[in-house]
C-alpha cells in the first residue's frame, strides 16, 4: 500500500509538471496580450509594463523564473491588480469556494442518493417518474437560470434571503442550492441506473432466496454495491465544486476563486491562469488519488495492481 501511494504521489508530481509546462506554452501562444486595451498606449508605457513583469525576457528565462518562484510556493503577482497577488486570490478565495462547494456537495449527495434509491425501488411508478423528471430538470436547466429564478422569488419577491454578497449564513443558502442542483441530478440518475443493474444480479436473488428481508437486501447488498460508480465520479465532482463556480459566484457576488479561471483567461493574466490551473490540477489529482485508494477499502474485490507484485 505504501509503495503504491508513493508511486502515485510521484506520478502526480510528474503530471503537475507536465500541466505547468503545457499551460505555460499554450498561454504564451494564444493571441492577445495582458496589456492590450482599446486605446492609445505609447510604446514606452508598454515596454515599462513588460519589463516590470519580466515579460520582455526570453520565454525560457520566464519559464525558469516561474518554476523558481513556484518552488517557494509563490504564484506571482496578478497583472490586473496591484493590490492582490495570485497567492492572495487563492488564500482568500479558496475557503469561500470550499465552504460553498461543501454545502452544495452535502445537498447533492444526500438528496441525489435518496432520489436515486427511491426511483430504482419504484421503477416505472410515480416516485420514479417524479425523481427522474426532477433530475432531468436539474441537468438541463443551466444553473444561472436557476440562480436567477431563486433570487427573483426567494430574495426579491418574498424577501426570505438576501439577494447577493457573502456576509452571513443566510447569504449562503441560495447559492448552495443553485450549485447543488446539477450534481444532485447527476448522482440521482447514476444511482438509479446502478441500483437497477445491481438489483438484477444473481446474488440479490440469492440473498432473497436465503430469506433475508427486503430492507436488509437493499441496504446491505444493493446500495453498497451500487455506490461504486457514484464514488468514481465523486472525485471530479468535488474538485469542481470546491474550486468554485464562476457563474454562481459571479451572480451571487461571492468572493470565491471561481472567477480566477475565467477572468484570468479573458484578461490574459498569465500568473492567474497558471496559478488557477496548477491549483485546480493539484486538487483534482489529490482527490482522484483518494478515490482510487478508497476503492479497495469499499470493495475488497478490487486489488491494487502494485500490491500484488
Amino acid at each position, binding site marked *: 500500500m505504501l509503495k503504491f501511494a508513493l508511486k502515485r504521489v510521484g506520478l502526480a508530481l510528474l503530471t503537475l509538471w507536465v500541466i505547468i509546462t503545457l499551460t505555460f506554452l499554450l498561454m504564451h501562444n494564444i493571441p*492577445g496580450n495582458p496589456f492590450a486595451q482599446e486605446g492609445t*498606449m505609447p510604446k*514606452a508605457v508598454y515596454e515599462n509594463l513588460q519589463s516590470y513583469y519580466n515579460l520582455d525576457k526570453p520565454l525560457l528565462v520566464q519559464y525558469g523564473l516561474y518554476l523558481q518562484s513556484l518552488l517557494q510556493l509563490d504564484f506571482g503577482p496578478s497583472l490586473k*491588480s496591484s493590490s*492582490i497577488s495570485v497567492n492572495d486570490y487563492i488564500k482568500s478565495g479558496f475557503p*469561500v469556494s470550499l465552504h460553498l462547494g461543501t454545502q452544495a456537495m452535502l445537498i447533492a449527495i444526500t438528496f441525489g442518493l435518496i432520489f436515486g434509491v427511491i426511483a430504482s425501488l419504484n421503477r416505472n411508478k410515480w416516485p420514479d417518474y417524479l425523481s427522474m423528471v426532477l433530475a432531468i430538470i436539474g441537468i438541463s436547466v443551466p444553473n444561472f437560470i436557476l440562480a436567477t429564478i431563486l433570487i427573483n422569488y426567494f430574495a*426579491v419577491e418574498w424577501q426570505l434571503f438576501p439577494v447577493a454578497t457573502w456576509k452571513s449564513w443566510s447569504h449562503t443558502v441560495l447559492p448552495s442550492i443553485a450549485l447543488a442542483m446539477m450534481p444532485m441530478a447527476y448522482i440521482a440518475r447514476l444511482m438509479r441506473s446502478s441500483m437497477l443493474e445491481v438489483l438484477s444480479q444473481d446474488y440479490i436473488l440469492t440473498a432473497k432466496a436465503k430469506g433475508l428481508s427486503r430492507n436488509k437486501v437493499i441496504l446491505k447488498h444493493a446500495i453498497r454495491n451500487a455506490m461504486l460508480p457514484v464514488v468514481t465520479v465523486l472525485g471530479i465532482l468535488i474538485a469542481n465544486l470546491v474550486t468554485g463556480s464562476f457563474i454562481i459566484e459571479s451572480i451571487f*457576488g461571492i468572493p470565491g476563486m471561481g472567477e480566477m479561471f475565467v477572468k484570468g483567461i479573458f484578461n490574459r493574466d498569465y500568473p492567474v491562469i497558471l496559478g488557477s490551473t496548477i491549483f485546480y490540477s493539484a486538487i483534482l489529482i489529490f482527490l482522484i488519488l483518494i478515490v482510487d485508494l478508497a476503492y479497495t477499502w469499499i470493495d475488497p474485490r478490487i486489488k491494487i495492481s502494485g500490491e500484488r507484485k
Partner: protein
Amino acid sequence: MKKNLARSLIFLLSIVFVLSGCFGGGTNNESTPEESADPGEKTEETGPKILRLNNSSEPGSLHPGTAQGTHDSWILEHAFEGLTKKTPEGEIIPGMAREWETSEDGLTWTFHLRDDIKWSNGDPVTAADFEYAWKYALNPESASTYAYQLYYLEGGQEFNEGKADEDQVGVTAEDDQTLVVKLAQPTPYFLDLTSFYTYYPISQKVQEENPKWYQEAESYVSNGAFKLTEWKHKESMKLEKNEHYYEQDKIKLDEVHFVIIDDENTAWQMYQAGELDLVYPLPQDVQGQLLANNDPEFVKGPDLAVYYFNFNNEVKPFNNPKVRKALSMAIDRQTIVEHVAQGGQIPAYSVVPPGIPDVSGDYQENTGNLFEENLDEAKKLLEEGLAEEGMDQLPNFTLTYNTSEGHKAIAEAVQEMWRKNLGVEMTLENVEFQVKLDREKAGDYTISRAGWVGDYVDPMTFIDLWVTDGPYNDANWSNPEYDKLVEVAKTTMDQEERMNAMHEAEKILMDEMPILPVYFYTKPFTVKPHVTGVYTPINSYPQFIYADIE
C-alpha cells in the same frame, strides 16, 4: 463484508465533512455578520447617513499613479482631490489649488495651494506631494499605464521612456504651497487635466515609509472628501467622511458602502430588494423598460463616448469612400438606439459626442449632422464606388465584434438593414476582446466594432484618433489635409482657431467615412428617491460627494 456498507457511507460523507471541518467553518466570514445589508435595513434620520452602491469589479489599483479604468477611478474621485475640481455643471473650479496663473506663451502654469489642506492622517498636503506623485507615475519603474496622461509636462515623455532624468520633468514645488508646471507645448485643456486622477497628489511621506500603503484600507491615506476605511478584497469597500477635508461641512454623507458585484442583473435585483441605493451600469433590457415607462428613478446621464465601426481602409472595396459612405447611409440609427441598444443613446452623425464646450455653445450642437441617412443616395454611391473599384457587387465580407450580447444585437440589426436596404450579404464573427484588439492592430479584419471614451473634455481626444499612423487609427486611414488641421488645432492657443480646425477636420472625416459612427453612449443609472445631490460629469461615473440622504 457487512462492514462494507458502513464503510462506503462513511467514506462518502467523510470527505465532505472533513473538508468542511478543516476549512469551511473556521476560515470564512460566516462568523462576522455584525454589519448587514439585509432588505430590512433603513437609514434612520438619527443614524449615520449611508449610501450603498455597487462597484462592478474589484479595483485593480487604488494608487492614483497606477490606477486605470472606472472601477479604480470611481473610488479615487471621492477619496482624492486634484489641483482643480469640477462643479456639477462641469465648470472647473479651485480644488487643492486656491488660484493659478499662466505665462503668456501658455507653457508655464503656477498653482498656489490652499493653506488648510490636509491628508486623512492629519499631515498637511504640500506642493511637493504633487511633484512627487507626478514623477512617481512617470517613473518607468512604476510601470504606470496612464503615465502618458502626464506626457504634456516638459520632459515627461522622455523621463517615462528612460531618455531623460527625473530632474528634467517640468514640475517643481517652489515652496510648500507653490507648484510650477512647465508644459512641453501649449495645451488649452491642461486645466481640465489637473482634475483627472493621474494628476492627484500622493503623500510622499506615506509612500516612502510604506510603498504598499494603497493595498489595504488600514494604511490608506488620501486628501479628498472621503477616506477608505475598509476594503475586503473582491467583496466590499467602505468610505467614510474625511474629517480633515477643508470643505467637510459641505459633505452630508457619513459613509459610503460599496459591494463588488460584477453581474448587472444581480446588482439590479439588489436595488429592487432595497439593498442598494444607486445602480450603474444597468442590464440592457432593464434600461429599455425603465426608459419606456418613464421611471422616475431612472437617470440618463451624459457620457463622453462614441460607438462606431472601423472599415479596414486597406481592404478592397472599403478603400473607396463611396462604398463606405453608402454603408453608413443605409442604416437606421434611430431604430438601433430605440429598439436594440435601449439605453436612451443618441444617434451619431458625427464623431465628437455632445457635452464638450465650444467657443460658444456645445461643440457637437455646433457641428450638427455631417451626413444623413438616405437609401437612394446610398444605392447610387454603392454602385458608383463598386464601379470605380471594378466590381459589380459587394463580395461577402465579415463584421467582427467582441463577444457581448449587446454588440451582437447591434451587429445583427446592421446586417439586416444592409441586406434589406442594399442587398448586401455579410457574415458576423464574434471573437474575444483581446483577440479583436490583436487583429485590428494587425489589420486582419474587414469591418470591426469599436468604441472610444474620451480621456479629457476636449474634441481633440476624439479627433486625434485618426491622424495618419496614429496608434488607434485601426481603420488605417490617411488624409494629409486632416493631419494638417489636427496639427493646427494642437499648436495654437487661439480657442477659435482650434475649434474651427477641429470642426473642419471632422467634416473631412465624415465626408470620407473611414469609420461609421452609430451612436453616442449615455450613462443610464437608477437612484432611489431618498438620495439627493448625485450628479454625472460627462467623463466620470455618478458623483456623490455632495449627495445627501433624506
